[in-house]
């Protein structure tokens, strides 16, 4: 048994060392896998702010993941085909620059989260789960028939987008970029959890009535959390699209939303590194089990079930003792 803080440091060390080893051993695919895990972790880290801290069980976060993905897809598509995105009321051109794409991904998914959150937060509990699911499905069906951007076929981007000073096509460099973003987001989340906002949001999940009686508005707190959460998941979507050099409506599917929740619960709900542990475990399982049997999803299901039923607090909960008693 170790403390959560030490475990987090260990995980961080693993995130740095394993790909470095793979790079030295010329195993680029291991780096690709690690990149996938890191991006999923980022998406789930976004969801974790709404779900883990704010208690908002969103079964529609794939919407933001997809919006981020399509922000990248659409901008890069226009850039590679030298066509303008729109010519009226003013000219908007595509771009292959990652920072610009990220900014667009963050802003659009935050806006979408604002609208979806504003409407969805009128409900609570199961209704909230279901209305977020409904919004996700709207995006899914819309993009499937959105002929201008490939519909169900999606969009292929032939060359990964650029980041100043890096060769993003080199797996280890792209990985480093993704890891840096993940670390930045986790650090910011850690700050946020200790800041007045995190304190109030955390209380709003546990006891909204109390939050009101100290003069704060729990709904507004939750809405802000939802928007931040959507923006981060959107950024992850843009990176995911760049990893695959491809976007498609499956990024919007409800199974995707489900998987994001799965990552969080495997790792440990509301824990800073929960999404990282969950996503890494999931990506590894997917690979090991996928090679073992055609029916590997049965084993995956069994493991998930075992974690929910017997492993409360997720893997981090199993591996650590909680600081501060109990």
């Amino acid at each position: 048994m170790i403390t959560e803080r030490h475990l987090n440091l260990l995980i961080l060390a693993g995130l740095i060392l394993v790909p470095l080893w793979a790079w030295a051993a010329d195993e680029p695919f291991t780096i690709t896998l690690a990149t996938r895990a890191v991006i999923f972790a980022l998406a789930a880290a976004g969801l974790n702010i709404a779900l883990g801290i704010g208690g908002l069980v969103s079964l529609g976060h794939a919407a933001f993941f997809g919006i981020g993905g399509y922000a990248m897809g659409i901008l890069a598509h226009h850039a590679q085909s030298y066509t303008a995105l729109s010519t009226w009321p003013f000219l908007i051109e595509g771009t292959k620059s990652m920072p610009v794409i990220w900014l667009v991904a963050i802003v659009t998914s935050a806006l979408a989260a604002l609208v979806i959150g504003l409407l969805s937060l009128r409900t609570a509990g199961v209704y909230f789960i279901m209305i977020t699911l409904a919004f996700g499905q709207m995006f899914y069906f819309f993009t499937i028939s959105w002929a201008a951007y490939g519909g169900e076929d999606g969009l292929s981007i032939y060359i990964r987008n650029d980041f100043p000073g890096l060769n993003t096509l080199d797996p280890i460099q792209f990985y480093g970029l993704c890891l840096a973003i993940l670390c930045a987001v986790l650090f910011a989340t850690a700050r946020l959890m200790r800041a007045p906002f995190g304190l109030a949001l955390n209380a709003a999940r546990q006891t909204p009535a109390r939050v009101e009686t100290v003069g704060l508005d729990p709904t507004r707190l939750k809405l802000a959390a939802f928007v931040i959460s959507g923006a981060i998941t959107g950024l992850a979507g843009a990176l995911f699209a760049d990893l695959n050099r491809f976007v498609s409506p499956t990024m919007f599917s409800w199974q995707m939303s489900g998987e994001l929740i799965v990552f969080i619960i495997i790792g440990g709900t509301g824990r800073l590194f929960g999404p990282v542990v969950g996503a890494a475990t999931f990506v590894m399982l997917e690979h090991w089990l996928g090679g073992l049997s055609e029916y590997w999803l049965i084993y995956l299901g069994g493991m998930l079930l075992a974690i929910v039923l017997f492993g409360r607090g997720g893997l981090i909960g199993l591996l650590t003792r909680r600081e501060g008693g109990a």
Partner: protein
Amino acid sequence: MTVVLEARGITKRFGAVVASDAISLDLRAGEIHAVIGPNGAGKSTLIAQISGSLAPDAGSVQLLGEDITALPPRLRAKKGLARTFQISALAMEDTVLQNVLLGAVGAAGSPWRFWRSVGADRDLRGKAEAALERVGLLSEAHRVVATLSHGQRRQLEVAVALTLAPKAFLMDEPMAGLGTEGSQRLTAMLDGLRREAPILLVEHDMDAVFALADRISVLVYGRIIATGSVEEIRANAEVRAAYLGEEA
């Protein structure tokens, strides 16, 4: 004496049941005004309407002469009405200090800060620790609330209310579930509090009420049947028949 909080003709019906029947009462500066009544008399309904979580069918609530009937609990809190809950509404997974800090953040109206640790803010921390000090919980500041005793949670409820530096306290059965000793400690604490802001105390514990209250209102079947000093209430025949008689 100044009237701090006043309810006028508050009425609430649930179907055929009249839970609050034109209730009027006031809370004056420096006093503890206790509301007592048997189970089902409508005490909780009354508290809910004064704190704003339930809208009355008729009547009004005023704080320092300002009509707050239409305000939600959040805005009433901002105007200076601090309540404690009968069933503790604390963030059970958090520490004692975090719970009080929430009060301080609320009082400062500053939840929109995302970076600087709340514990590193001297102002907030100072306020929170002062409140804990007053209720005698400072030594427990870093314990998780779920591990506190029942009595300690009651003290913490009061501490959170204190951080708001309120104009009036609204306390919903703070003695509920406390043993004799705990009850006495809390009584002593509330006794000192009234100078800071008056307390509208809804309470079941008669010893505490008789020890603390400057005035007592008796609520039976949604109506206030008597209001007066401890002696007046003790002597009131109607109260004895309707209420104390049953208790004895």
